């Protein structure tokens, strides 16, 4: 408990300040979360769930906190020029963990819809916020969720009431900016009510290279009956940024959700995705890709809970590992006793291109119902030598051929994206990444 102690002390000293700059809804679970954090601490490699990434190490640095909610001297509308071409989106910003509101920048949204600061939302709709906040992200199960709940003061919220469809994708840009090493603890809360529909593209960008950042993010997503929600997360952080993100999705009957995690560039990343299918005929598509080199590491830990019959889940994660990078994937699928007629399919495919790259994969099926169709497949290998020769025999250089094949390897993950402009943009970004042309997001002038 040595690493934890400094944070325990910090909370004890700064409790008042934290609460003052937040809202009642966010303050309510803080004490319980603090007790849970004191009890469990950060997970270590000894824990089966964290055996491939020592996340406690991420916290073993002296980070600055912006508990007093001072404005960060940056205007993201200036810094962030990049836009996915042809993607006419509703653009929002978080700078570190603060919601950035620019006066005069309005969005044409129906009045019943709320998109913006979590703190504002919980003051405007305290009942709605209290009904959902912290209900999926349980602080007793995971030390980092507890930690985030202790320190989170604000974040981002999407509330789409019954029957409303937001056609335009909502784009959330998270910017890490700091003059010292910084930690940010942010929350995302997404409520898509019955028969409503929305899409969110969220991306992480480190602006200040050379600074160390640590981001904890807890996302809770409620997808109501007959609702549809797409969530694309793209990480384009610097090598000195650590990210621990936990996403909890709860789906009701006939709902349809996409959760897609794209690690294009990062430092060290741990993503948890937990999807619970609570209503019959719910369908979920969980997937992602990781392209890593240098000493980057990505650990995606997923859990799909088929709690009721007649639900379908598709899961696909792909990794390309170069240089001294490390990849880990855990995919647990639980089919509960009465969840008959479940269909659950999982694949994890990985390419290691150097002797120093390491990959750990742990698919798990736990099935307690008999009338189900479940499968998983995992492979670790290299670029197919036959395909490589075929391309070279057509005059394509070895380097180019390797790039093409790596790109092709990722094609089906990109195909799962249900947002055409983003799909095209991502194809370009992935290709650039494999060509080593993309150290960071290309369109972002601040990078």
């Amino acid at each position: 408990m040595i690493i934890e102690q400094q944070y325990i002390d910090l909370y004890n000293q700064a409790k008042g300040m934290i609460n003052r700059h937040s809202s009642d809804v966010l303050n309510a679970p803080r004490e319980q979360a603090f007790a849970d954090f004191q009890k469990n601490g950060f997970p270590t490699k000894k824990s089966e769930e964290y055996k491939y990434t020592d996340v406690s190490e991420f916290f073993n640095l002296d980070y600055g906190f912006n508990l007093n909610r001072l404005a960060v001297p940056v205007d993201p509308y200036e810094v962030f020029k990049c836009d996915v071409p042809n993607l006419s989106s509703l653009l929002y910003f978080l700078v570190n963990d603060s919601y950035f509101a620019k006066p005069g920048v309005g969005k044409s949204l129906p009045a019943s819809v709320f998109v913006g600061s979590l703190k504002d939302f919980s003051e405007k709709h305290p009942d709605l916020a209290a009904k959902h906040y912290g209900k999926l992200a349980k602080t007793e199960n995971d030390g980092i969720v507890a930690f985030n709940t202790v320190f989170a003061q604000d974040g981002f919220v999407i509330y789409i009431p019954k029957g409303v469809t937001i056609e335009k994708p909502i784009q959330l840009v998270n910017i890490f900016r700091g003059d010292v090493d910084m930690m940010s603890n942010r929350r995302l809360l997404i409520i898509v009510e019955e028969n409503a529909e929305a899409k969110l593209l969220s991306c992480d960008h480190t602006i200040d290279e050379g600074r160390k950042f640590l981001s904890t993010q807890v996302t809770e997503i409620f997808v109501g009956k007959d609702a549809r929600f797409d969530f694309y997360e793209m990480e384009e952080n610097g090598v000195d940024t650590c990210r621990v993100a936990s996403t909890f999705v709860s789906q009701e009957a006939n709902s349809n959700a996409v959760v897609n995690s794209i690690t294009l560039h990062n430092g060290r990343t741990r993503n948890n995705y937990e999807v619970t299918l609570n209503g019959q005929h719910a369908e979920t598509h969980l997937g992602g890709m990781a392209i890593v080199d240098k000493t980057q590491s990505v650990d995606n830990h997923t859990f799909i809970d088929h709690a009721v019959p007649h639900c379908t889940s598709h899961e696909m994660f792909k990794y390309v590992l170069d240089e001294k990078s490390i990849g880990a994937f855990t995919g647990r699928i639980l089919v509960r006793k009465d969840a008959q007629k479940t269909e659950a399919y999982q694949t994890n495919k990985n390419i290691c291109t150097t002797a120093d790259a390491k990959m750990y994969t742990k698919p798990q099926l736990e099935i307690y119902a008999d009338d189900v169709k479940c499968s998983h497949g995992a492979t670790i290998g290299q670029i197919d030598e036959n395909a490589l020769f075929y391309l070279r025999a057509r005059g394509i250089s070895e380097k180019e051929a390797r790039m093409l094949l790596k790109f092709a390897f990722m094609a089906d993950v990109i195909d799962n994206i249900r947002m055409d402009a983003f799909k095209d943009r991502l194809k370009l970004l992935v290709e650039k990444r494999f060509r080593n042309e993309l150290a960071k997001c290309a369109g972002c002038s601040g990078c």
Partner: protein
Amino acid sequence: MKRRKFNLMLEIKNLHANVNGKEILRGINLTVRPGEVHAIMGPNGSGKSTLSSVLAGNPVFEVTEGEVTFEGKNLLDLAPEERSCEGIFLSFQYPVEIPGVSMVNFMRTAINEHRKYKKQEPISASDFLKLMREKREVVELDNKLASRSVNEGFSGGEKKRNEIFQMAMLEPKLAILDETDSGLDIDALRIVANGVNKLKSEHNATLVITHYQRLLDYIKPEFVHVLYKGKIVKSAGPELALELEEKGYDWIKKELGE
């Protein structure tokens, strides 16, 4: 045998090659000039496909002895892609499926690499599409196939037609057709062979590797070589192919005293 007095295109001298430590080619000698069509025949396991792979530079095979020159250059020093850009085209016996790489992207990349090699500018998108359209007709290739991933889900015949389509796109000097007739029905065979014939000129040469005579009814060779146990044991005119068709390979083995 009459040989035209053109320059040498391909010259193979005493070529030996191994795969996984096992010697497959045991001293091949062969000369090919522009405008010529050579057929290499031989029983299964004689080394026919190995020869085509070695010429294209497949890294699985190790050349242990001998020389191969192509238009005066030492071919064995060149990477597979350099050989391709120099004008060697291999029509694969088993074309490789590459999911995720579209035919269009694949062909444009190949064309541009060839142009870069010749110090030419990349082809414009409209010229490229025009070229695709034009060359597709050579082998009556469906437009739909061009929009799919390379060879993925193609039938056997479609794969072979796709090979000849690529050959038309890249306009090689030396085309090596490795068992291009295998797995083709008679109509597909005619389409493929017509495609090859349309592309033939006095400047390029063709090496047809086949087990059977039937492809040679369409693509007429001037020279027929019999490959056996890694060596060319007999060379003659087109009449040799007919003789092999009739008598099989046993008489050659007998001739060799086996």
